[in-house]
């Protein structure tokens, strides 16, 4: 196991007091695996990513749990040690490709700088490696692109550069937080194929965070469904998507307009997106769940279906 998050709880302090954002979540990633975290706004998926990288804001506090990476707990590690892991062992790609790049530095030089941080090579060699890594992410004419500034590239090209940056070490784990959300579907398609290829060639594991179940279906081996800072269901992608157990997962899939009869209204999950200020005491989905009953006012148990598939709900058989 490459990454093992156990019973992690995180809260954020604000002028209104503490708000619980992650509640006792456990997840793991094996070597070479692509694991998805899917959820809507406020589900805590991005906070999960940031906590692994040790990048949480100052007002966040870890209330319990551990994040074991290759046998060491990232939560108790000193900042200097984590900094040594970032980029080299654990790479990251965020949603906005514009803000991730330095606007005043040529692409090739940015890449070469990163490569020299991780490897003992000369400036010349680093530049050559930079061009190679651009070729790896299928940028046409990498020599020319290396000589350009970020603003001269399109969004899709920029995101490829960011992936090239993240993969240049290459890392053992890549954390990608909605890396294709801002991109057009045709470009997204190419980026997803590229990431899949990189996991095969470089044996990198990917933790892929998204709100898009279609992307999960296309890319991920396993998936965790998050709602309101809790994991409500997990399993192999095909188990979770095609034999969903949790009412939230089911509702999410039914509310997608894909393949739905036009004459019929879409089935909806009633209510509004999760609000951490109004956290229910028992089951996190209580307010919006069509099946909720009195017993749901206490936290639901975990129900297992075979080795990999589980959900946290009172109402499953």
């Amino acid at each position, binding site marked *: 196991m490459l990454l093992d998050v156990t019973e992690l709880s995180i809260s954020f302090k604000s002028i209104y007091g503490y708000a619980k954002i992650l509640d006792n979540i456990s997840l793991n990633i094996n070597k070479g695996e692509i694991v998805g975290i899917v959820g809507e706004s406020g589900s805590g998926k991005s906070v999960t990513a940031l906590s692994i990288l040790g990048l949480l804001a100052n007002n966040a506090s870890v209330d319990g749990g551990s994040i074991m990476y290759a046998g060491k707990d990232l939560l108790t590690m000193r900042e200097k040690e984590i900094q040594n892991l970032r980029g080299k062992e654990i790479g990251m790609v965020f949603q906005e490709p514009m803000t991730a790049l330095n606007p005043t530095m040529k692409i090739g030089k940015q890449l070469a700088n990163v490569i020299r941080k991780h490897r003992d090579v000369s400036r010349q060699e680093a530049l050559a490696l930079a061009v190679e890594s651009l070729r790896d992410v299928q940028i046409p004419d990498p020599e020319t692109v290396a000589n350009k500034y970020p603003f001269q590239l399109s969004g899709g090209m920029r995101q490829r550069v960011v992936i090239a940056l993240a993969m240049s070490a290459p890392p053992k784990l890549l954390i990608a937080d909605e890396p294709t959300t801002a991109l057009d579907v*045709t470009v997204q398609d190419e980026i997803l194929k590229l990431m899949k290829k990189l996991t095969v060639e470089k044996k990198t594991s990917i933790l892929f965070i998204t709100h898009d179940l279609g992307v999960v279906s296309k890319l991920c081996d396993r998936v965790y469904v998050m709602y309101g800072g809790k994991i409500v269901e997990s399993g192999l992608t095909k188990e979770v998507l095609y034999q969903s157990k949790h009412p939230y997962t089911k509702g999410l899939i039914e509310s997608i*307009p894909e*393949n739905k009869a036009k004459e019929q*209204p879409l089935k909806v999950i009633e209510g509004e997106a999760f609000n951490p200020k109004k956290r229910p005491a028992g089951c996190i989905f209580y307010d919006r769940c069509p099946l909720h009953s009195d017993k749901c006012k206490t936290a639901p148990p975990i129900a297992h279906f075979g080795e990999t598939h589980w959900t946290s709900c009172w109402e499953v058989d």
Partner: protein
Amino acid sequence: MLEVNNLVKAFDKVVAADHVSFRIPKGETYGLVGESGSGKSTIGNMIIGLLEPTSGEIILDGKNLWLKSRYERPKDGKIQVVFQDPQSSLDARMTIKQIVTEPLRALPREERKEKSQRGFLAQLMKTVGLSEDHLDRSPHEFSGGQRQRIAIARAIISDPEFIILDEPTSALDVSVQAQILNLLKTLQRERQLTYLFISHDMSVIQYMCDRVGVLYHGKLVEEADTESLFASPKEAYTKRLLESLPRLFERV
């Protein structure tokens, strides 16, 4: 109802709309789909009079909307629009009542009076799935889905016949998107509304639209009724768009 003929919009070097023609019969939904920069919103903006076409015509119910570089407004409130971003399309300093009743300023006095009454507004709020006491609150108290309901209330207060929906659900979570799509369909059925639905999301377009036009670099590369476009796309670009769509059920 709406007819667009050979519409062209050229900015300095870029042609954002290149001889685009389509027509939308009354009560139908026409989808414009394309990627960023394909010219979808430019076309919408020319129809509501925010951008002047370089050439071509836009005809609403037999009347040309752009004559001699002037936008000839149709009957006030006949065309309305709902934008993508419910965070920025509602004025943060206004109450919901002020926001929703703003289009009334353009209407005749009688109608304005009638529609500013509390009873009417309460009913309007109910129609879009909100409640009367929401009228006195401010936008920041609402979630994204509720804000989009407010934007829809503002659009339908003038009893429009034609509404441009410019990516109305793209900023919303899917569970909330479904609620808004259902609301739009219900309103269309009850009020015989005609929609121009602009979106980059093929599955939303498929669910909502009767007919679809595919835009690529300002050109309408393919147009067909929704079923045949999705079943047998003709153009290479449409095929690529459909293949790229991350489908949930493709492995079934």
